[in-house]
Structure formats: C-alpha cells, structure tokens
C-alpha cells in the first residue's frame, strides 16, 4: 500500500496548485468576509499538503515539522480573525466587504 512509488509527485503538485487557485479565486470573488477567510484557509491547507507530500517523497522530516508550525499559526490567525469579524459585525451590522470599504467607518 505504498503510494510513494506508484503516484508521481507531479500529481500532488497538480492537486495542490488547483486547490490554491480555487482559494485565490474565492478571495477575489466573494463578498462575505467569512467566506474570504475560509478561502485563505483553503490556500493554507493546499500548501500544507504539498509540504507533507514533498517531505514524504524526499524522506525529510523538516517538511512535516513546518506543516505543524503552519497549523499552529493558522489556528491562532483564525481565532483572531473571527474575533475581529464578530466585532466588526457588532459595530457596523454588516460583514460585506463592498460595504466595509472605508478605513474609518
């Protein structure tokens, strides 16, 4: 059940590039600040998967350690980001970025 010899690394590169581009398109298209944050999380996850794949294919544990730290930072960032979004909604009653396009409300 060893996929390292049967699936070339280019398949993982293709999968992660497509997931990353879906995330980028999500950040550009969507107006809801929550969905934009979710698209950023999708981008981060595609990079995590790619790092883990290269780490497995090169037998180098540094990739998986890096994924561990990226997950740590992403978790902290989501907590703070959601707190900010809830605070924005409490003061302006909207999380639509086309409405919130001024630096000073």
């Amino acid at each position, binding site marked *: 059940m060893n996929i390292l010899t049967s699936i070339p690394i280019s398949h993982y590169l293709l999968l992660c590039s497509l997931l990353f581009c879906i995330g980028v398109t999500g950040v550009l298209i969507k107006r809801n600040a929550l969905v934009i944050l979710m698209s950023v999380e999708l981008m981060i996850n595609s990079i995590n998967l790619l790092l*883990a794949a290269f780490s*497995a294919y090169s037998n180098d544990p540094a990739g998986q350690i890096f994924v561990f730290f990226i*997950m740590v930072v992403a978790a902290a960032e989501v907590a703070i980001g959601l707190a900010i979004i809830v605070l924005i909604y409490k003061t302006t009653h909207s999380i639509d970025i086309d409405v919130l396009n001024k630096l000073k409300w």
Partner: protein
Amino acid sequence: MFSNFIFYFLSILALYSGMMVLLSKKPIHSVLYLTLTFFAIGGHYILLNAQFLAIVHIIVYAGAIMVLFLFTVMLLNLNKDERSPKPFWVKAAAIISGIMLGLILIGVFRGYDLHAGQHPVESQIGLVKELGRILYRDYMLPFEVTSILFLTAMVGAVLLGKKEQI
C-alpha cells in the same frame, strides 16, 4: 492499486468540495463543504503515512477551526441576501485571474525533472515517535516560541471579546 484509487477519489473529493465552497449561496453550506475538504486532505495525510499530521489536522481544523466558523456563522445570522451582487465583469476577471494563476503554476513545474531529489522509501518520519524526537531535539526553539504566539493570540481574542469599552 487500491491506494491509487483512494488517492484519486480523495483528490476529486477535495477539488469538488473546494469548488462548492465558492459556488454555495449560503455561508453555512460553504462552511460544511470546507469541512469536507479538510477531511479529504486529512485522508491524503494518512496516505502519505504522515500519521501525526493527519490526527493533528483533523483535531485542529475539522475539530476546532470549523467549529469556530460554524459558531460565527450561526451567531451572525447571515441569511439576509438582499444586497446587490458583484458586477459580472468583476467575477469574470477574478475567474480568469484564478485560471491564469493555475496555468502559470502548472507551467512552472512542467519543465522540471521532479524525480531528481526524491528517495521514496516507506519511511517512519511521519510517526509520532520519530516526529516528536525531531521536534524536541532540532526544533525546540520554534516550539517554545509558538507557545508565546498562542499566549498572545489568546490574550488578543479575549481582549477583542470584551463587552465594555476600553
């Protein structure tokens, strides 16, 4: 052969639910599709024998971050959709930009010989014991610094959640 099939199935699942995150009308559907994407990526980690990462990924992302998103979506009660949507040319430009980024990324790695530095053996580096040994021996300082990062994130989140004016 069976693992090939699992790889392609998980890839199609991840790509499909990633697309549905964008194409959903309601934010709650986007959150649920993103959770499905995270489970598919967790399956990919198990395929790569990165067991520690798979468990941490499921616990942190599907178990904590998605629960936070669900709570926020339900707290904000975002069912009102009466605002005017983005103009069509903006959406078309964004989709074309995404497709072009995809083509650039694919075009970059097509010309490379990717088998040069690979030593694909069934290794043990994904197991908890090996990864923990390397984490606590070589990467001890970043590990301690991330604890300070978590402390600041917790302080920031509590501060942002306070009711009274500061």
